[in-house]
């Protein structure tokens, strides 16, 4: 358990202690181990209803994403390819992230408006869209950490200082660094997606 640090730095007395209800109100972060999950539950079915009303306009009926709005389902097996699609099913290592993010940030433009049960249901539904659970599934605080996530092993901590050690170079080449003159292999101009300066926004 937590113990106070040995040598406590001097306090100024500024600020005030938080009220427990204040801490509760703002403690909406959820961790992979389930810390921070509120009591509650929600089924794929319930989630589907809410999703179609509040989410599908942007994310598509099946989480496929409308227009350029984010895709929420699919993409399994795409990570090594030309067009990686990163979804809960294909990429996200932990389920807690979906619960946490939907609760704090969605629906876009009406954040923090969902009840805890609704967030459980929506999380269940997004899992279903990603073939992670059957249509009959109900998500609860209790079963939350038991769902295996396909890409949980797909991440490792930053190792650039060892794996990219070669970029530390005490003697970078200064002259005749390549045998042949460089040739142009690509031009932004050809792709032609740069906004025109002259048609850009103006300060009036």
């Amino acid at each position, binding site marked *: 358990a937590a113990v106070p640090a040995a040598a406590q730095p001097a306090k100024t007395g500024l600020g005030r202690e938080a009220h427990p209800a204040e801490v509760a109100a703002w403690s909406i972060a959820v961790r992979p181990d389930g810390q921070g999950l509120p009591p509650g539950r929600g089924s794929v079915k319930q989630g589907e209803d809410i999703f179609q009303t509040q989410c599908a306009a942007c994310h598509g009926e099946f989480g496929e994403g409308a227009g350029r709005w984010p895709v929420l389902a699919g993409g399994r097996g795409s990570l090594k390819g030309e067009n990686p699609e990163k979804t809960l099913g294909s990429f996200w290592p932990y389920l807690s992230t979906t619960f946490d993010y939907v609760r704090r940030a969605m629906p876009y433009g009406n954040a923090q408006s969902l009840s805890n049960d609704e967030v459980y249901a929506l999380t269940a539904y997004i899992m279903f869209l990603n073939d992670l659970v059957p249509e009959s599934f109900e998500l609860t605080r209790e079963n939350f950490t038991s769902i295996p996530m396909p890409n949980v092993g797909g991440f490792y901590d930053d190792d*650039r200082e060892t794996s990219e050690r070669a970029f530390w170079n005490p003697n970078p080449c200064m002259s005749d660094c390549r045998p042949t003159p460089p040739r142009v292999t690509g031009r*932004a101009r050809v792709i032609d997606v740069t906004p025109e*300066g002259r048609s850009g926004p103006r300060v009036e």
Partner: protein
Amino acid sequence: AAGLAGAGLAATATGLRAAPPAAPDPLITTVQDWARTLGDGVQARPYGSPSQYEKHVVRRDVEWLTASRESSVNFTPLHELDGIITPSGLCFERHHGGIAEIEPGKHRLMINGLVDKPMVFTVEDLKRFPGRQNHAYFLECAANSGMEWRGAQLNGCQFTHGMVHNVWYTGIPLKTLLDEAGVRTNAKWLLAEGADSSGMTRSIPLEKGLKDCLVVWSMNGEALRPEQGYPVRLVVPGWEGNMWVKWLRRIEVGDQPWHQREETSKYTDLLADGRSRRFTFVMDAKSVVTNPSPQAPLKHKGPNVLSGLAWSGRGRISRVDVSLDGGRNWRSARIDGPVLPMSLTRFYVDFDWNGQEMMIQSRAIDETGYVQPTKDELRKVRGVNSIYHNNGIQTWLVHANGETENVEIG
């Protein structure tokens, strides 16, 4: 150094000065309106703005990049700036739920989690803490240059490198607030949370939080701009911009990271083997030539000033090299202005241009000895799916007519 012969890097005298014109310039020989009549008096502009002739100097976005401008980005016009400080009105914006407009008297900052007592501070409280500090730090979005992984895509350093700014901050060390709440010995991570409608969150190692993070209310001398987190933002020197939580409302202290959406779905670096690096916080050394560049072509033969910016999340810039021949030959640039740790650093090369084609590159070296890699060196170890942390060397092709474009070379 064959490649340098044509477009000499050294500023040598280029013959005689131009003779007087056949006829005098009427802008000199006739009294101009501004030299005759009265202009605006004091108090016409209680808070001033740039000249009417500088309206092109603005942040710009790339509309096709995002579905909505409330979760989008715009870019600092680096090619229009000089020195190391970014004017507050031109610091690039990145929002996930638009700009939170917060009345400072209504803002609260909570410290909770593994602390002796959870605490609540007002903005006024923060300004009363001892140990107030001032620092200039760069803030670079980890996705800066992210559109360029697969090749040259956007024609202008504003778009390729404009997700960076450099600002003077005033605030207090985050450590001061953590000390006030009393951090427990088993604490290892912090969660920083914003008050905006994305409830922006990032996990930050406690060690970094105690080392040099700041809680600030002031940028470039005045209150933070709303786009930059007014009334309070977190400063995480040298680390990716997304972690510098704006509209900071809460710091939770814990013993594990939270694996939030912005550190799993986003801001992880997908490599060629399908696995991803996570917690890639530090921004590697990087540089860009801002002038000339596609939006700021060369206009004259003869003397010209090449200028650019270099920065490193690991400390001070120790050297910047510039090549005019696509990396065959290099010469160290002249650095001018303060060289501060984790701050943009300004470099110049005064050169004579004889009108020949050039492939301009710059290469930053920081005090740890890290040398900015070429794009191909980077692709070799990372693939092209990383999105983030593209610090590869940029190439500008300058044509004989001065036009300048973003190219890839091989």
